[in-house]
């Protein structure tokens, strides 16, 4: 009995590797309603806005040129989580980078006499 191995002797060389997306969120502009995704790598980028654990907006995909400012509609509030997503495959897979809007708070010291 002879065994014949099929043509499985492939050359183990350099196979094309799909690029991995990179998401970056630099900042936001509530007046212009745009989020700066400069540094993101991917064909397309988009934004999600999460409030109290619920995604309240996912923006349409926009082509990424590496300095893309992504428009959004939500009126932002303190504590909102802003995320940039970047993808090479139509968001079948994607990278995510998130930042949260800070929330200030303070109190006055109770006093019992004028100072």
């Amino acid at each position, binding site marked *: 009995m002879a065994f014949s191995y099929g043509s499985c002797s492939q050359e183990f060389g350099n196979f094309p590797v799909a690029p991995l997306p990179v998401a970056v969120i630099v900042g936001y502009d509530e007046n212009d309603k745009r989020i700066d995704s400069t540094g993101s790598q991917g064909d397309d980028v988009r934004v999600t806005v999460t409030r109290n654990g619920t995604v309240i907006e996912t923006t349409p995909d926009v082509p990424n040129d590496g300095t893309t400012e992504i428009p959004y509609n939500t009126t932002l*509030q303190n504590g909102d989580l802003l995320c940039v997503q970047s993808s090479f495959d139509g968001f079948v897979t994607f990278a995510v980078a998130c930042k949260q*809007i*800070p929330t200030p708070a303070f*109190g*006055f010291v109770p006093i019992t006499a004028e100072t």
Partner: protein
Amino acid sequence: MAFKISLQNCKIEASNCAGGAPITAIFTFFDADGNEGTATLTGTKNAINAINDTTFLLIDGDPAVDTIVTPFGNVTVVFAFDASYNVNENIRVELNVVDCMGFRNISPAVGFTNAIMTHTNQYLEDGDDHYIAFIT
């Protein structure tokens, strides 16, 4: 006269930053005539949030630079007041924050009275009627 500000029960939330990262907290003061003043605090998030009822931010209208010493490091305070600002007639205080990533809050924390602060028998509340302190 002066008043004192504390973060003892109301910490700044800046989740983009570790406790040792630098943030900036900007207090803005408004007197009954619309004159303004500011106190700009720089320090780590933990240091600024360590300002409390005993290690407080004192507002007396003096434009000098101040340092608040906390267990988490020093907080530098730079004051700036309109020449006509009257601390005895302060009626409103706002707090805005810039975190370590440059992210700013959308709306300020606000404390105000419905009358000129006399520091007796008045309460201060923020914009959504949350009590901040009762001053006796």
